[in-house]
C-alpha cells in the first residue's frame, strides 16, 4: 500500500537487504533440498502403490492362473486378460494379459483380490511416453522387473 506507514528501518532499506542476504548465505552453506530428477530418485515407502506388475514363480513362469478376479475388481476397467490351458501342474495361465496404465488409478484392488499373489503394486510411477498405446502394458512387459 502506497500510503501505509513504514518503520524507519524499512525506509532505510539497507537493514532489510542485509536480512535477506543473511538467509541466502545460510542456505548456501546447507545441503540443497531440490532433488536432481531424473538423476536422483525417491526411495519409495514400503506401502507405496505404483503401477501393478505380474510376479514370476520359481520356475520363471507367471504365478497368475488367469482367474480374472483382478479384471473384475478393477474400478477403471484397466485390466484385460485371456486364459489358456498349459500342460503343467497349474493347468491354466494367461495367454494374454494387458493393463492400460493410463487408466490405472493405483488403487491396489487387483493386488488385494489376487488369490495367488501374482499381481502386485510396484514402486514404478513413471509413464512418460509419446504415444497412448505405449501405456498398454503387455504380459511380457508386466513380467519385467520394474
Amino acid at each position, binding site marked *: 500500500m502506497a500510503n501505509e506507514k513504514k518503520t524507519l528501518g524499512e525506509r532505510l532499506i539497507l537493514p532489510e537487504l542485509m536480512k535477506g542476504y543473511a538467509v541466502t548465505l545460510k542456505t548456501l552453506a546447507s545441503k540443497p533440498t531440490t532433488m536432481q530428477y531424473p538423476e536422483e530418485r525417491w526411495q519409495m515407502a514400503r506401502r507405496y502403490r505404483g503401477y501393478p506388475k505380474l510376479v514370476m514363480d520359481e520356475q520363471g513362469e507367471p504365478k497368475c*492362473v*488367469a*482367474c*480374472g*478376479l483382478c*479384471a*473384475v475388481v478393477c474400478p477403471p476397467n484397466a485390466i484385460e486378460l485371456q*486364459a*489358456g*490351458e498349459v500342460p503343467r*501342474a*497349474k*493347468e*491354466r495361465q494367461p495367454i494374454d494379459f494387458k493393463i492400460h496404465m493410463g487408466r490405472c488409478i493405483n488403487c491396489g484392488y487387483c493386488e488385494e483380490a489376487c*488369490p*495367488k499373489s501374482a499381481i502386485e503394486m510396484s514402486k514404478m510411477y513413471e509413464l512418460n511416453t509419446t504415444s497412448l498405446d505405449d501405456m498398454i502394458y503387455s504380459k511380457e512387459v508386466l513380467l519385467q522387473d520394474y
Partner: protein
Amino acid sequence: MPKIKIDGREIDVRKGTTLLQAAERLGLEVPQMCYHPGLRIVGVCRVCLCQVKGQPKMTPACATEAVEGMDVALYSPEAEKARRAVIEFWLLNHPLDCPVCDQGGECPLQDIAFDHGPGISRLADPKVLKQKRVVLGPHVVLDEERCILCWRCTRFTQEVSGSYQIMLRERGAATVVGTPPGQSLDEPYSGNVVDLCPVGALTSSDFRFKSRIWEMASSEGICTACSVGCNTFVWSKKGAVERLTARPNPQVNEYWLCDRGRFDVAFTADPERFKNPQMRVNDRMIDVEWEDALLAMAEGLRASATRGQNQVAALFAPHLPNEEYWTFQKFVRANLGSNHLSMGRRETLVPSRVDLVRRGRMLPSIADLEQMDAIVILGGDLERTHPVYALRVRKAVRERGTKLFLATPEAERLEHVAEFSERVAPAAAAEWLTQLAGKIKKGGDHPAIGTLAGAQKVALLVNAGDANVEIAEAIEAFLGSGPKDSTWKTLVLDEGSNRWGASLLGISPHYYPGLKIVTADEAQGLKTRWGGRVSGEPGREWPDIMSLAGDGKIQALLLVNSGRPHRWSFTSTERAAIKRIPFVAAFDLFSADVQDVAHVILPSLSFAELDGTYTTADGIVQLARRNIVPRGPSPVQVLHRVASMLGVKMKGPDPIEVFREIAREVPQFAGMDYGQASRGGARTDRALAGVGSR
C-alpha cells in the same frame, strides 16, 4: 393330500411329493447337490439332510416322501450341524482351486459351503491327489480331484441317454468317475454331463478355461441345428458365442441338448464370415459400402418389380426365424409379384401332407410320446437328425413301457431299447408302411402287429429326409389302420430347424401363408390387404425354377440364409442356369456357393445376433433373444430399406412388429405375442385344427 409342517409352516402336498419339493414350494432354500429333476433320486450327497420329528436319524429331504402329519425341521441347529459335517466331508479332498476352475462363479459347492459350511478346515494331512486331466471323450474332460461323487453323470448315461459310458470305479476316498475300460464318452449327448456336473469335474473341452462366468453375457436362445427347437442359454464374450447350455422346457427339450447343437458355435466368430457387402464388378467380388449394395439391390429388383408375374425366384435355407420368412415372402409376393418361393431342392409342403394337418393327424406335442402305447420310427436315425426327440422316445420306453419299432436304413443306438427293428431304405419306406398298414388291417405276419393291432395310442415318426414327401399317403393309410376310436398320430421330421414355420408362413410355390392354396381368389384377398401385385398363379418348385432360369425366364433370384452356415450345393447345371439370371442377390454368412453366382452379397447375422421366433416340428413357436450386438443390419432391416428405396412401405423392421403382423394375418399364429413365445413357447396346434373348415 398329506399335510406336513416344515420349519413351522404348514403345507398341503400331493401324495408322492418329496420333502424337498414341498420345501421349495414353500419358498425355502434347500441345499442340494445330487438332486436333479430330470434324473432318478439317489440321495447320495446328503446335504439336504433334515430332521423329522419322531425319527431317530436325519433323513435326506430329496428322497423322503411327505406323509400326513410329518413335522420337518430343515434349519434346526441339529440339521445345520449335520449339513456342516457333510460339507466338511466334501471339502476334505476337494482341491479348492476355484480360481482355476471353470465352474467358479456358478458352483453350488461354492455357494453351499459359503452358506452352510464350517468356514475353516481342520484337515492337517495332505489331500488325496488324483488325475487332473482325463480326456473322457471328444467333448468332455474330467478333473478327478474336483468330483464330489453326486452320480449325476453316471445316472444321465444310464437312465437318459442309455449309453452307460460313465461309471464309478474304486471304493471309498479313491472313488472316481470314468468311462468303462476301453471306451470313451462319445455318445451324442455327452455335453449334458458338463451341464449336470455341479462342480468343475466334468468340463467341456471346447469351453475349458476360455472364459469366467461373469465375463460372459447370457440370454435365452433357441437352438437352430434341427427342428426340435431346444431351449438354450447363449453365453457370449466379446462378440463370440462361447458356449450353449440347456434351458429347461418340459414341452420341448426337458433339460437336455445334443452335442451337435451345443458345440456348433465357433462359426459365430469365424474370421471368414462376410463382414462387408460385396458386389460383382468385372466378374470379381469386391467389398462395397452398405449404401451402395442396397442401391444395387434396389436397382436389380426394380427391373423385375415392374415386369410381369412370377419372374423372380427366392430360395431359402431351412433355419431362418419366422420373421425373416414372413418379410421375404411378403416382399416377393406383394412387390415382386412372384410365387416362386422355394425351400431347398425338394418341396415338402405337398397336398397329402397338408391333408394330414387338416385332419388333425399330426402329433400335437412331442411330450405326448410319453403317453403312447407304441412308437414307430420310419426313415433315418433319430439320434443323428433330431437327437433330443430320441431322448423323449427313450423316456417313453423306460417309464411307460412304450413299445418301439424301428424301420431304418442302418443299425443305430435306439435299437437297444426297440422291440423290433428292421432295415428299410428311405426309398422303400412308403411301400413298407403301406404293407404294414395292410397287414394290420387284414391280419398278416409281422412282429409289430401283435402290439399295433390293439394299440390305442400310436405315434409314427417319419424321418426319411427327402423321401418324406412320397411317404405322406402311406402315412394316411397307416394311421387309418388302427383299431376303432384309437388315436394314431404322426410327426414328419424334415431337415432344418424352422421348416414347419416356413411352411405355415407361405414359403412354398403352392401355398400362401396359413396353408391357403394359391388361387386367383386368394390372391385378390391378399392384394386388398397387402397392396402390390400378388400373383394368383402358383409358382414352380426348385428344379422347374432352374429350368425356367436356363430358358432366361427368371429375372432375379434371392438366396436367403441367416443364423448358421448353409451349403446350397448347386449342381453344375444349376450353377449354369443361375448364371443366366440377370440379377442374383444373396444373404449369407459365408458360402463359396454364393460367391460364385451372386451379383450382390449381403452379410447376414448369426443366430446369436438375431431376435426372432422359430417353430418346432411339433408346432411350438419360441422366441430367441439377441445376445450379441451385430455389426451390420439384419436381413429384415436390409429388405425394409430396399423396399423403401422401391417406394414400398413394409411392417418392421423391428422383429416384434413383424411378428404382430404375422399374428394378425396367419391363422395358425393368431393371438400370439412375444411374451407367450418366450414363456415356454406358444402352440400353433389349436389354430391348426381349424384349418380344415377354412
